[in-house]
């Protein structure tokens, strides 16, 4: 276990930045989100949850895949170059690291998404423990320990110090690079903090949420359940839940006409939108109930069925915080649980 004084964090970030891009929570106009760190930017390690999850470091909200240019009677296709420089993401929480593991199952499964894979290969994740988990948090339900994040490096902010522990080869390499700023630390301090964090988590309102009914069985019963007809009603189809979610991976591929060429880019999309499945010959999800049901069936039933029981939810609680109609996955899980369906 190593440590660095909080007052020296700016030096630490400057040193990390010497060998590549550094992404960390930055406060802009009172909103904290992960962004590339510039000297003098207001980094914010106190806000528990960034508004958007940090997934866009690996799966950007928008990215060009290739560019097409008409050249006589042919088209010149130029693929976008892959990320080939190392970078560091600092301050990801355990739930968001879990979100990346869910995205890994999507983008690193055959056929591998090269764009995502290149970012994963070159990115080092420094995770930060959650010292004050909030009422909307329920990562424990998905087996995630906010007191002990599992990433390349795990860190804890205790008192005036940041405690630092490398967990992987990538983490060791980063630790080596910044070793001049780190000093030996007492492991017991971190152990005590973990105990304190876990005590808070135990008392959170959703920590005892049961996933008992969501074991991948009874797909037809769940799909046909009348509960959806009531649950979906407040949904405004705004898509906020999907954009703040660390595991939502639906994307669109579109054209951007530059005037002299066409960039084919992909961007986040949302299964909450009516045109998501619209085709020339019709739409297989015409009602908001169907779209609402799709989102939760995907996270709690279809995804686990395809991924050894792993849920496509990590309990970050952003949807709980952000939904303008106070709808969220907790309500869905509870509705089915309480009705025993």
């Amino acid at each position, binding site marked *: 276990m190593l440590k660095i004084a909080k007052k020296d964090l700016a030096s630490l970030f400057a040193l990390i930045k010497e060998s590549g891009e550094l992404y960390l929570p930055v406060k802009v106009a009172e909103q904290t989100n992960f962004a590339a760190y510039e000297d003098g930017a207001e980094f914010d390690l106190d806000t528990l949850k960034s508004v958007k999850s940090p997934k866009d470091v690996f799966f950007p909200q928008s990215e060009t895949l290739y560019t097409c240019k008409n050249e006589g*009677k042919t088209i010149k296709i130029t693929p976008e170059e892959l990320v080939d420089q190392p970078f560091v993401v600092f301050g990801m929480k355990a739930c968001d690291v879990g979100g990346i593991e869910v995205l890994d199952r999507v983008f690193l499964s055959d056929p591998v998404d090269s764009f995502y894979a290149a970012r994963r290969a070159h990115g080092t994740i420094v995770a930060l423990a959650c010292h004050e988990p909030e009422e909307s948090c329920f990562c424990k339900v998905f087996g995630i320990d906010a007191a002990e994040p599992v990433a390349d490096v795990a860190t804890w902010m205790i008192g005036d110090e940041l405690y630092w522990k490398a967990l992987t080869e990538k983490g060791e390499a980063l630790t080596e690079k910044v070793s001049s700023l780190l000093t030996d630390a007492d492991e017991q301090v971190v152990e005590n903090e973990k105990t304190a964090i876990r005590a808070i988590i135990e008392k959170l309102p959703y920590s005892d949420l049961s996933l008992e009914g969501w074991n991948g069985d009874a797909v037809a019963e769940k799909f046909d359940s009348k509960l959806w007809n009531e649950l979906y009603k407040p949904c405004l189809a705004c898509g906020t839940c999907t954009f703040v979610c660390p595991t939502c991976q639906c994307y669109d591929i579109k054209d951007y006409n530059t005037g002299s060429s066409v960039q084919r880019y992909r961007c986040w999309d949302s299964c909450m939108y009516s045109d998501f499945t619209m085709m020339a010959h019709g739409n297989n999800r015409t009602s908001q109930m169907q779209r609402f049901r799709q989102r939760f069936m995907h996270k709690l039933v*279809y995804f686990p069925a395809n991924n050894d029981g792993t849920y496509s939810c990590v309990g970050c609680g952003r949807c709980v915080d952000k939904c303008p109609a106070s709808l969220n996955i907790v309500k869905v899980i509870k509705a089915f649980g309480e009705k025993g369906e």
Partner: protein
Amino acid sequence: MCTEHKNENHECTCHTGYTLDTLIPKVGIITDIREETPDVKTFRVNAPEGGKLFEHLPGQCAMICVPGVSEGMFSITSSPTNKEYQEFSIKRCGMLTDHLHTLQVGDPITVRGPYGNNFPVDTVLKGKDLVFVAGGIGLAPLRSVINYVIDNRADYGKVDIVYGSRSADDLVQLKEIRELWMKTEGVNVHLTIDREQEGWTGNVGFVPTYLKELGESGQIEFGVNTISLVCGPPIMIKFVLAALKDMGVSKDKIYTTLELRMKCGVGKCGRCNIGSKYVCKDGPVFRCDEVDELPNEY
């Protein structure tokens, strides 16, 4: 773009940093266009240097894109046994297909694929009697299988093709049907159109009704060794399945294809799923008893 030098990391080994991701298309050149019906054209596509863009299996699809217009998934209607080119029969019915219908021989498009599974031509279908049931543009994916079967005639039993359309003018691939399929030994073609039409001497009636007549009169036998392959508009598929059920055909002896909106083609963009199955990756070919197990959302 280099298309050959791919290492384990899906990177091109001769262009630093270049990806050979499945999302990156190749350029295809339209080398022939046949006007099949008032709203269906068959496009022949070659690589710019000639030959095929890739190898595929019967039933597989490819993403065709006109940069700046749109991209869409189309079944490859030519058989893999055709070593010279690939063909796509495309009905004009939306933004992209409207534009495709304005293209001329020599125009470039982009193509990526092949995507999806295929009809089990080398396993389940081998040695079996085959009944193809198609409606309208639904012939497109089945044509790939039919020509594969004709080119490997000895590997399969009797072949019956029941094909219908709104009118005689809407039957696609009519030249090939008359000049090749009808003349192939052991292949029987049964054409039908929805309404009486001057000059039409064949059957008049909907495909499901005609299929039942053919089955009940013994012109088509549905034995234990018969596999049916059905493709067409959803309403036709529904009544064909009902007709087959009435004739005692079990669903595990029927294959069909499904179609939903697609963007990526590899089960990642999240829109063509039916339950935990992705039509682009786990389909488009499904056995009908498997379809029954999926949530009713297609």
